């Protein structure tokens, strides 16, 4: 088993499938009277969040608690970071407190990789800059598998702000490992020019959403990340929504079985209309629930045994 989870590319098909299978078993705990397992009793998981997050932090916290681990939440606001403490010093502090795993979100791409060299415990990347978010990719894959029954051979369109999206990067890596075909769709300004050969061979790029929709099994809408945009990547929000937003008419152009995903938080009216977000084909709420099961599986597989 792997020691850290830093990138969607860390996982081979067998390990990724093992995580998804374990998540299936973890999901049954949510339906029980006692929603707790003793597997990580006495282990400490630190949530180290340098960026705002609701669902990912709460999801990791719920996952660790359901496995009986002790959870320490650390957010950069209100901590010594505001006094100028470096990531390394913070890491050494956590190390001294005996953290068995550090779940880290950081605005700098690559921060979890650095952290993995400094601490003895396992490091889980919960989103680093515009780089990767592997547990999101795992929960997306889990959601696709539970809705559509398989991953191999699926055609997945990832639509929108690919340039700033760590979700897109991790998904491309993981989905191609698991045998799905990915097409990246968005305005040319928001798709890195070199993305497909660099990430995974077989990944297509398209600038025309309407042409892609009739042939896909999954449409994954990405949030337009205005907080990371220092330039004007598109003329106006209205024009973006007109060309790349998923609305009712576009939803009806999808194949009957196709599902709509969004990692959240959504900009309703921008990349997705409320009609689509709340339709039965949208898996957005399901993705949140699946996130806890998948993160339980990841924490169990990293910390459950003696993998040192």
């Amino acid at each position, binding site marked *: 088993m792997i020691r850290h989870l830093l990138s969607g590319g860390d996982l081979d098909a067998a390990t990724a499938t093992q995580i998804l*299978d374990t998540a299936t*078993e973890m999901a049954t705990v949510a339906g029980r009277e*006692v929603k707790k397992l003793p597997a990580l009793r006495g282990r400490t998981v630190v949530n180290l969040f340098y960026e705002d997050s609701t669902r990912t932090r709460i999801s990791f916290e719920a996952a660790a608690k359901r496995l009986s681990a002790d959870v320490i939440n650390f957010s950069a606001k209100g901590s010594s970071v505001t006094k100028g403490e470096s990531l390394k010093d913070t890491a050494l502090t956590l190390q001294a407190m005996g953290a068995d795993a550090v779940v880290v979100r950081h605005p700098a791409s690559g921060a979890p990789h650095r952290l993995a060299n400094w601490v003895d415990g396992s490091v889980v990347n919960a989103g680093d800059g515009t780089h990767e978010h592997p547990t999101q990719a795992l929960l997306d894959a889990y959601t696709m598998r539970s809705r559509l029954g398989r991953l191999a051979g699926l055609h997945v369109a990832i639509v929108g702000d690919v340039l700033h999206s760590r979700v897109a990067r991790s998904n491309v890596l993981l989905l191609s490992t698991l045998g799905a075909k990915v097409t990246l769709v968005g305005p040319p300004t928001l798709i890195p020019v070199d993305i497909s050969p660099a990430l995974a061979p077989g990944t297509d790029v398209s600038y025309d959403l309407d042409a892609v929709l009739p042939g896909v099994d999954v449409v994954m809408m990405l949030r337009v990340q205005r907080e990371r945009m220092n330039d004007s990547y598109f003329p106006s929000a209205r024009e973006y929504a007109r060309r790349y937003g998923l609305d009712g008419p576009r939803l009806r152009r999808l194949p009957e079985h196709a599902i709509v995903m969004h990692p959240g938080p959504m900009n309703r009216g921008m990349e997705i209309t409320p009609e689509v977000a709340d339709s039965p084909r949208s898996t957005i709420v399901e993705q949140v629930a699946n996130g806890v099961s998948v993160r339980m599986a990841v924490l*169990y*597989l990293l910390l459950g045994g003696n993998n040192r």
Partner: protein
Amino acid sequence: MAYPPAARTSPPRQPSVKVILTAADVSRVVDRIAHQILEKTQGAAETVLLGIPTRGVPLARRLAARISTFEDVTVPVGVLDITLYRDDLRRHATRAVGPTDLPPGGIDGRRVILVDDVLFSGRTVRAALDALSDVGRPASVQLAVLVDRGHRQLPIRADYVGKNIPTALAESVKVTLAETDGADEVKLYGGGQ
């Protein structure tokens, strides 16, 4: 009379293998346990058989099948995976988690009979009891095993035992079943002395 000189080196001892139960024995033993369950539970009313993976699961299914042949009652069968409740998780590489599958009616208020192949230290059964208390509240819990080889490390005993096999700690007992291994057999492997 002169004795021949003692051999300087004794030939290397092969670890001995002894068949304890043949396929026919296993089938007789399963039949007997099925009868005992019917006798002790007044016809297996309100009873659920839960197999502990790997080989407890086919054993539980066989017991249920024999019970329904003998008395025409259907006993629900389920699977109880105990991986996450083991006390030795940290001593090994991470173990794969298997499915837990309870019968539709659940186990609340019923008599649960745990089924496993070999009873040894008792730690598996301890883990199973913990797992059981997290998935429901049975009225009572019993234990059925194909082989009891002794050497308990916890105060645990079986209610139904297929065969008691006195063993040395260094020996090992291996159960194979048609469903999981291709053939029914119980073998005792010697510790090589």
